[in-house]
């Protein structure tokens, strides 16, 4: 150990014991002092609010009376709540699925082309991830604009009727998912590309000599080698997508008729705009279960990776 090596050099044999103790004490004191700002920040602004939110959810609207699970009871009786649950799940699962799929294939295409061109392509394909989401969503909103929609203009050239991108519930749901996929797929691409680079080339050569076709190579080499990173990325993205706010808020603000609300936007509507903080807190708490489950699996993956490394 580094500490012992230092000890051996610095301290004469006679006083070793007490000064070692002092040294240890000093070391842990310094270490604690160094982590203290982090601990204060996390406890005061993340952990405390998270628990406070559970307490808030048990109060009435004016926050003066304890109502227990009254807010939840109220939510369970509202059809809008169940619709938000359904829409959040549809939104998160389908968006993550397509992000992973597109990211996987695009990563493959980038990996296939010669190395010197890869940087350029990777650079271009990452642009959606780099632009602030709120900003790019405004761009999409303008592309979807009912009277000047540039997409509808193009479709019109092919003789297709204008599509009510954000006006019709089904299309609006499609649109928010589309924008989310557009924004998130580059992240998957970059993760998968990093994973693909770590698969030893000899495996593919051996497989090619054995006569494996592209599907067999994908199924028996690429996927098993990337399994861990795929799992972590998907779970990660599931959390972020489930908690998404910007895209839905700017594109549809939950409409038409609340059909595209997800937990975050609905909680914002009730809690901040509707001034019913406990109800908003209760809604946002429904993000916890999926969060917890994903976190456990991610942690397992990350730990396993640390042990392997």
């Amino acid at each position, binding site marked *: 150990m580094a500490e012992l090596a230092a000890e051996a050099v610095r301290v004469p044999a006679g006083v070793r014991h007490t000064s070692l103790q002092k040294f240890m004490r000093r070391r842990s004191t310094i270490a604690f002092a160094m982590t203290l700002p982090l601990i204060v*920040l996390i406890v005061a602004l993340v952990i405390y609010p998270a628990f406070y939110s559970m307490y808030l959810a048990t109060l009435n609207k004016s926050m003066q009376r304890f109502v227990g699970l009254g807010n939840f009871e109220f939510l369970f009786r509202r059809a809008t709540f169940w619709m938000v649950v359904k829409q959040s799940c549809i939104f998160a699962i389908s968006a993550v699925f397509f992000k992973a799929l597109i990211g996987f294939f695009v990563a493959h295409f980038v990996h296939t082309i010669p190395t010197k061109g890869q940087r350029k392509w990777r650079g271009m394909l990452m642009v959606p991830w780099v632009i602030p989401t709120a900003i790019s969503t405004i761009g999409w909103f303008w592309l979807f604009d009912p009277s000047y929609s540039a997409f509808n203009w193009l479709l019109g050239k092919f003789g297709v009727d204008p599509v009510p991108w954000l006006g019709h519930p089904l299309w609006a749901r499609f649109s928010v998912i589309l924008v989310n996929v557009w924004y998130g797929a580059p992240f998957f691409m970059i993760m998968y590309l990093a994973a693909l680079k770590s698969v030893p080339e000899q495996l593919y050569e051996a497989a090619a000599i054995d006569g494996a076709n592209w599907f067999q190579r994908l199924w028996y080499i690429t996927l098993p080698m990337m399994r861990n990173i795929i799992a972590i990325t998907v779970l990660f993205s599931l959390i972020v997508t489930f908690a998404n706010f910007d895209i839905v808020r700017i594109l549809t603000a939950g409409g038409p008729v609340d059909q595209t609300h997800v937990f975050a936007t609905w909680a914002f509507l009730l809690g901040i705009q509707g001034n019913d903080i406990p109800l908003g807190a209760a809604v946002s708490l429904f993000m916890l279960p999926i969060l917890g489950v994903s976190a456990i699996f991610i942690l397992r993956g990350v730990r396993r990776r640390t042990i392997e490394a």
Partner: protein
Amino acid sequence: MTAVTAGELGGLKPARRGSIQKSRRQALFWSYVFLVIFAIFFLTPPIYMLVTSLKSSGEISAVTNPWWVYQPTLENYVELLTQNQFLVFFRNSVVVSVTVVAITMLISVPAAFALSRMKFWGSATLATGVFLTYLIPETLLFIPLFKIFAFLRDVTGIEFINHWWILIILYPTLSVPFCTWIMIGYFASIPKELDEAALIDGAGYIQMLTKIFIPVALPGIIAATIFAFTVSWANFLYPLAFTTSADQLVLPVGIVTTLIKGDVYNWGQIMAGSLLCAAPPLIVYAFLMDYYIAGLTAGATKG
């Protein structure tokens, strides 16, 4: 094609090599085709934003090809940059982001060093805890935080809500856990021999951090800085919930709430403002792409 079965393997070698080359060429061709398709998909919105930002409002409402500019003009940019309001948003954003980056690095670098090198009671648990906090989304925290700051106002008499500087308190909750986590990874990859050499030369822990760890882990520090900057530049929820007055807004929210006035959308200006807002992260990305990507992948691959 690669449909070379085991039986054929003993056959003519040149033929097999030829077929592998042919399948390579085919794979390359299709890769380029699909890359072009996806590049179009990924780049359409920003390019369309650029096209719109160069149009006058007359041309935007005219029934012409929306994808083309017939009379390019910079009037939208000029108007925005001479307008005081937009510059206020920009200044707020810059001040908030730069301060948050500084705070984040001051908190997370020493903490990551302590957690990765100075094992103390509970340090492993704390490192895991840092990672878990990173997973808690802002959308879960904004309501209790809003209430906490309203409560603090009642107690201290300081008005927290509706001041841009509250974002300096809030944004580190987004940037610090992730930056600490990737810095732990970077520090852990530094060989232990370096510590030993430093200790033998009589360096203290602070010197070890500033003279060895920070220079050696500089790529990681740059990646973490970029992350902290982009997160605080792009956040939308916190400013939307915590600031309302026009002079307290930061860029993304400012564009959404003030440039869209009721039903009157001045699309040319909105797009110009959006692109000006997207420019700093894009410039950082263009020049520091490798660090940017290293930071992204470090979250899940290192640690």
